[in-house]
């Protein structure tokens, strides 16, 4: 029997092709991505069959957590500065340029206006701590939420209001929010939902 001679092959593989693929994918992800914005509270939205996508710009996001705390996020850094200045004026508080700068870099906020200065002085990591996520008051006695929305709308009337609330948020909280929005004549808004997992609704 002849001796079977196994030819020794090099184990090195040409990685060029793989490298190409990796960078192609990387480019794709870099170009298509918009980063997830950190939210001060975890919110799991209820699912619905609606398939309308939310527009990218001019969004005023109202975040409601399961306890009913309200947070607001507006886009546009210049708009944010103007918003805080006007809001401060309405509540007799003046904010320093440094604080305005800090505010313009904050995606979401949810503190009563009298604690805003303290909030802006905090480090970003501290702001998300549960004890610092207080929510914006929206009671009938002290409805700061209403003022925030109406001032923001005054700055940029193209803002679309989007409400993102948790599944378990009690209905009265939502009703109160809707009532506040109704008071300032904001009657069209979006409710953010996630897509319903496959369910047969096409039945007659």
């Amino acid at each position, binding site marked *: 029997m002849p001796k079977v001679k196994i030819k020794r092959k090099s184990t090195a593989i040409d990685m060029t092709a793989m*490298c190409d693929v990796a960078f192609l994918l990387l480019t794709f992800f*870099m170009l298509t991505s918009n980063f997830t914005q950190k939210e001060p509270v975890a919110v799991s939205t209820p699912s*619905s069959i609606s398939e309308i996508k939310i527009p990218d710009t001019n969004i005023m996001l109202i975040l409601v957590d399961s306890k009913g705390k309200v947070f607001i996020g507006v886009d546009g850094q210049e708009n944010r500065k103007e918003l805080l200045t006007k809001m401060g004026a309405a509540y007799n508080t003046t904010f320093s340029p440094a604080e305005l700068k800090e505010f313009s870099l904050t995606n979401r906020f949810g503190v009563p206006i009298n604690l805003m200065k303290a909030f802006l002085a905090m480090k970003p990591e501290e702001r998300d701590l549960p004890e610092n996520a207080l929510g914006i008051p929206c009671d009938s006695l002290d409805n700061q939420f209403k003022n925030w929305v109406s001032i923001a709308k005054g700055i940029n009337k193209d803002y679309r209001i989007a409400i993102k609330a948790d599944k378990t*948020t009690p209905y009265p909280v939502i009703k109160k929010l809707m009532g506040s929005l*109704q008071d300032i004549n904001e009657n069209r808004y979006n409710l953010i*939902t996630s897509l319903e997992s496959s369910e047969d*609704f096409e039945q007659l």
Partner: protein
Amino acid sequence: MSEVAQDNKRKKKGRTKKMSTRVDFTPMVDLGFLLITFFMLATTLSKPQTMEVALPSKDKVSEVDQTKVKASRAVTILLGKDNKVYYYEGTRENDIDPVLIPTNFSPQGIRQFLIKKNYDVMVKVRELKDEQEAKKLSDKEFEKRKDEIIADKRAPIVIIKGTAESSYKSLIDVLDEMAICNIGRYAIVDISPFDLELLAKTSL
């Protein structure tokens, strides 16, 4: 590992060794995939879905308006605790209370009732959908005709009322049902003592 940075010392003077031009791409691939992983985790690929709501403005809604809803067309849906849902048709007539029927959000629950109630509109919308598929109606045309069908004078008008125990999920679910069943006119209003009374009687 790398084949590039080797053999730097020249053994014989004047005679440069022919170096391989192949570069080991493995670290570059590693880096590429690392970055891909980062971008994949840090981004949101799918935009959230939204649901558009338009509520009547405050000055338009009055008690008169609410009672104007013809009893034969009116369906009231009450949202209860733990995603329970109740409905009744019409209103109190000749001191006879309407019957409050408990149901749920399954396809056999509230949806079946609404579909039965809104059967004519459902059939017409279905026909329109078929036509759209066959004749390739434009989306705009489709929406326009759908709106016409939905605004049927005999179609039910749904009044949605949430109790204090109900959650946001119920509200989204019920708005979903409105979309599925092609209910053209619905309103979200405050719960009345009469409804609470009915609820209390039913849950006993």
